[in-house]
């Protein structure tokens, strides 16, 4: 370890204060702090600090994403092979999925991190860890057949417009990963919906097609999947969103480590279940009579609620606000699904909409606290 440390210190020398490459220090620091927690000691404030830092928090989210990602890779291959009718093993399916998805992840990280590094050098601050999660999320919520250049453009749009334009990690209003998806959704609609994008190679081979369950329902079709298939995730859909089961494992990791807000997750489920149940009673069309239980496991609802709605930067920040925010995400998700057949996937728009309203929700929660304090002041003045 000390050998590596020495090498790194030598390597970093030209990036030191007053040295030739000082401007590029954030770039080299990002690599250094990836290997080693730095030797910085406390200067002001508390003399001891918790072991947790932003890197650890973000890496925990990445770990929580792994089950859904691995299943998503497998499911990509599985959907392909059952359509072509070839016999296949788990490994075949997994390799086919990796062949499609790993390049997407690479493109996302390369484009996104390049922009992040440029901004870090330009602004003279350290590279923030936020993109480690965003960069993995973006490919996970795309249809598998989307061209790589579209992934690249969506990533660039999200990082530049949704994040850096507002000041970088911690300052953005919208969730960057969802912004990337929304951008692709509106800019390249033919690659983001229909029955030719959800299964690997469907856009190239006529024999292959596949519609998402919500798409089928919106078109008035019949759904032939059992609840178990929907829950387990062997259905067409965006890469990692299909399996509620593996998303749930991620949710357990996030809640157990305290990284994801259980208030938001539970609130969303309650909100969606309630609205879904009310629509079941009404039952005017196929989406309305689609059981509320099924609503919770199909489409991107589970994935969106667990990994996107809980993004602490774009969600409500107060505990009370998190409840309101979560419930409304659930409510709007089902409302959009049911009332707007053009957008069968409601959770993306529901979360983006609530991202915009999160500061308003917090404003009212905090105003409540302020009003209580001012009332107390007024009462004290009266008795004085």
């Amino acid at each position: 370890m000390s050998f590596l440390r020495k090498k790194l210190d030598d390597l970093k020398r030209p990036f030191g204060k007053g040295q030739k490459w000082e401007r590029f220090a954030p770039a080299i620091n990002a690599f250094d702090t990836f290997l080693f927690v730095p030797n910085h000691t406390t200067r002001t404030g508390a003399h001891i600090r918790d072991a947790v830092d932003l890197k650890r928090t973000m890496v925990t989210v990445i770990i929580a994403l792994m089950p859904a990602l691995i299943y998503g890779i497998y499911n990509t291959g599985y959907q392909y092979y059952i359509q072509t009718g070839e016999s296949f093993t788990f490994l075949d399916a997994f390799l086919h999925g990796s062949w499609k998805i790993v390049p997407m992840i690479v493109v996302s990280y390369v484009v996104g991190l390049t922009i992040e590094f440029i901004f870090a050098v330009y602004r003279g601050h350290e590279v923030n860890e936020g993109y480690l999660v965003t960069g993995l999320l973006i490919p996970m919520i795309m249809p598998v057949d989307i061209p790589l250049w579209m992934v690249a453009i969506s990533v660039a749009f999200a990082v530049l417009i949704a994040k850096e334009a507002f000041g970088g990690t911690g300052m953005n209003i919208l969730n960057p990963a969802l912004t990337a998806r929304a951008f692709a959704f509106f800019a390249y609609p033919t690659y983001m919906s229909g029955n030719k994008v959800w299964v690997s190679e469907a856009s190239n081979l006529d024999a292959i097609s596949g519609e998402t369950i919500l798409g089928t329902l919106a078109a008035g079709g019949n759904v032939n999947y059992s609840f178990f298939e929907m829950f387990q995730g062997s259905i067409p859909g965006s890469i990692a969103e299909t399996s509620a089961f593996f998303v749930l494992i991620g949710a357990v990791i996030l809640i157990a480590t305290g990284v994801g807000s259980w208030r938001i997750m539970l609130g969303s489920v309650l909100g969606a279940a309630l609205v879904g149940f009310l629509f079941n009673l009404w039952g005017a069309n196929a989406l309305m009579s689609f059981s509320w239980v099924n609503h919770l496991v199909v489409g991107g609802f589970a994935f969106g609620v667990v990994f996107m709605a809980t993004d602490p930067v774009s969600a409500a920040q107060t505990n009370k606000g998190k409840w309101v925010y979560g419930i409304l995400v659930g409510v709007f998700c089902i409302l959009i699904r049911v009332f707007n057949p053009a957008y069968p996937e409601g959770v993306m728009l529901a979360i983006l909409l609530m991202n915009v309203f999160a500061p308003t929700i917090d404003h009212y929660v905090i105003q409540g606290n302020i009003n209580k304090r001012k009332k107390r002041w007024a009462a004290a003045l009266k008795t004085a």
Partner: protein
Amino acid sequence: MSAGIRTRRGATINLVGEAEKILSVANPSKTFALKPDNFFGLVPRLMVKEGEKVAQGSPVFHSKTDSRIVFVSPVSGEVKAVVRGAKRKILEIVIEAKNGDAVVHEVPAAKALDRETVRNILLKSGAWPFIRQRPYGVLAEPDIVPKAIYVSTYASAPLDVDYWFLLKNNLEDFQNGIDVLNHLSDVPVKLSVEANFLLDFESIKGVDKLPIDGPHPAGNVSVQIHNHSPLNMGEKVWEVRPEDVANIGKLFSNGVFSAQRTIAVAGQSVLQPQYVKSIIGAHLSSLFEISGIDNTLQNRVINGDVLTGKAVALDGYLDYFNNLVTVIPEGNQYRMFGWLPFMDNKIPSLSKTSLSWLFGRKGYRTDTNMNGEERAFVVTGEMEKVFPMDIYPMQLIKACMAGDIEKMEALGIYEVIPEDFGLIDYANTSKIEAQEIIKEGIELMIKEVG
């Protein structure tokens, strides 16, 4: 006795090196120092010159805004040096101890005392700075009558002292001090006592006891005020530390300014952590002679606790108010892949991304490493977990950063002082320096609102 205060939010961080309940007496220190910086918001005006002789209790400097508030020498001797920093700011006034007289004040019999006399004696004798005022934690204004006076005997910070052990041989002076302070306010002194040890202070009369139950920062006076009778705009409350109550009591029994300080010398790097009897401003070496320090380590010496104390050189001096000196190792080493979840579980952590809760029974060993780098605010809800007040800490910090006075006021800046944010400094993921931000916020408030 008032209804008890129970808080659940917060954390008691169990560190190794707690002071054993042994009381030793320090060898008399050869030099002493007074540091104007120990008094928040004070601008000092020197009253002595280098080389001038001072008696125990004779004034050394006074407050620029109120010349009645004088700060006196804890010992008799000679002013050895006035240490100045940038812009000629006075950092330390070093006094070399020599045999000499003490200033004796005339104190009327207890029955003849009234508010005016008590105030004058406190001011003249130099005991007034023992009293600090909320909001802001500044020196008390002599001309007001506070809503209440709080004395907290529950020290909840890591390795903090046991005030009962510290006071039990001194109860007469303590009672005397309480009686004196009762003249200054219309209601009896609020004496906060840890709920499990309520019987300790049973013999103390003339106080309104507040049983406190909860993890750190429940021992902080801000938390107690907030949960007992929160401070409203315009209201003022005073705070006196327990040993200073005894010091005031002593002053009123013999007329001499008393600067007694019993110090718990604690922390991982201390060889024999224990209590040492000393005097305000004493040289730290007189304490370490008794407790010993592990010199094989590179250490940080802290006047106060690890969350809110001030770093001081190994050959520095005691601060004015602290009853605790903590010595822990510096943490200037690298940790490979230390940012991975569940790595380095020996480092105490309140986050569940660490298994450190499994290792805390015998106390944690920790150092001064940042354990990460400063980042923008990202994680929400973690500050509230260690902040047992009905105040939104993150929003208040942001208001302070923005310098938005109206917002700071509305969000409760009057009810907090920087030390209440010690645990937030410690626990927050983004390594935000909350205490520093709140301190700057309060300085802005004093400048703009007064």
